């Protein structure tokens, strides 16, 4: 435990609070730093299950996104709604019974602060979501599901993130 405590302290010293206030950076840093790279394989496995669910539930489908935004199908609302309900119950259970991680650490939650970006950026992302039929996760999944052309919107999304980083100080937040 002594090792864990000292590394937690070391990590918190590195975290730039100003940077964290607007984004998630810093909150996911490994608390146990002596982990080798292969400890990340467990996240790969969760990703595989998630990726299969993406395709089998057809949420990476451009058609399903168009149906959702035209209120022509309950499907996408059902998927997101069920995911949120399952997520809320899970988080409540973790908090109430103080369930620890597999390494015995306390699960840490972070409050999100409101800023104008959630409105302006949110609307802009909504436009892109309806155009491409994809959020960032499905962009990756669509490529490996056989649509190589999606490499173009993915590269464009990376460019969009970069441009946001470049102009960040000048944008209203």
């Amino acid at each position, binding site marked *: 435990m002594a090792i864990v405590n000292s590394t937690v302290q070391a990590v918190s010293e590195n975290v730039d609070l100003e940077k964290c206030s607007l984004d998630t950076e810093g909150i996911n840093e490994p608390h146990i730093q002596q982990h080798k790279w292969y400890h990340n394989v467990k*996240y790969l496995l969760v990703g595989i299950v998630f990726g299969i669910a993406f395709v089998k539930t057809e949420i990476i489908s451009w058609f399903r996104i168009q149906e959702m935004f035209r209120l022509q199908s309950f499907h996408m609302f059902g998927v997101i709604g069920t995911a949120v309900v399952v997520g809320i119950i899970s988080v409540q259970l973790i908090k109430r019974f103080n369930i620890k991680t597999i390494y015995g650490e306390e699960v840490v939650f972070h409050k999100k602060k409101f800023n104008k970006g959630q409105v302006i950026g949110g609307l802009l992302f*909504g436009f892109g979501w309806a155009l491409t039929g994809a959020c960032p996760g499905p962009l990756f999944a669509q490529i490996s599901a056989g649509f190589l052309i999606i490499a173009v919107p993915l590269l464009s999304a990376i460019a969009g993130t970069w441009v946001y980083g470049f102009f960040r100080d000048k*944008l209203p937040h």
Partner: protein
Amino acid sequence: MLDFLKQPWTWYAGGAIIGLTVPALLLLGNKHFGISSNLRHICAACLPAKIPFFQYDWKKEIWNLFFVGGIVIGAWIASTYLSNGQPVQVNPKLVQELSSYNIHDYGKLMPADLFNIHTLFSLKGLLLFVVGGFLVGFGTRYAGGCTSGHSIMGLSNLQLPSLIATICFMAGGFIMANLILPFILKL
């Protein structure tokens, strides 16, 4: 069993698996579900260009890139081995609307007669793929998260800013799909 797996999953089965990603990542190592951050990590790794927003140790967030690697593999497995080859079942109203834009191919999850290299080199393709992708990357980072980080992880933790973001995602999508996209698809 395999035939069962090959059917498209219902909304509640798929939604439950996606929702369970939240506790899975939390309990495996205090990780907060959020995919769009990976776009930022890719920028930080490949082209930080002395921009403060990309000056951090992206290697500490490498778990998320492993997670996305899993999504890529999972999507490949599902579309290669778990597909029943049936056309996507789409609301007849949408079929009618799309046929007026010459979209008729429901064989795969994306319309092959729209998502192809031929469309890319047209104004329609430029708007759909290049501008659309740009808005996804710019908008999610500006909003501080996407459907996973805000709509699923943030709402699971009952965060009001995430609810505001989710409402704006949906509002943007409704405006684009109903008011602007029809003109783009007619191009």
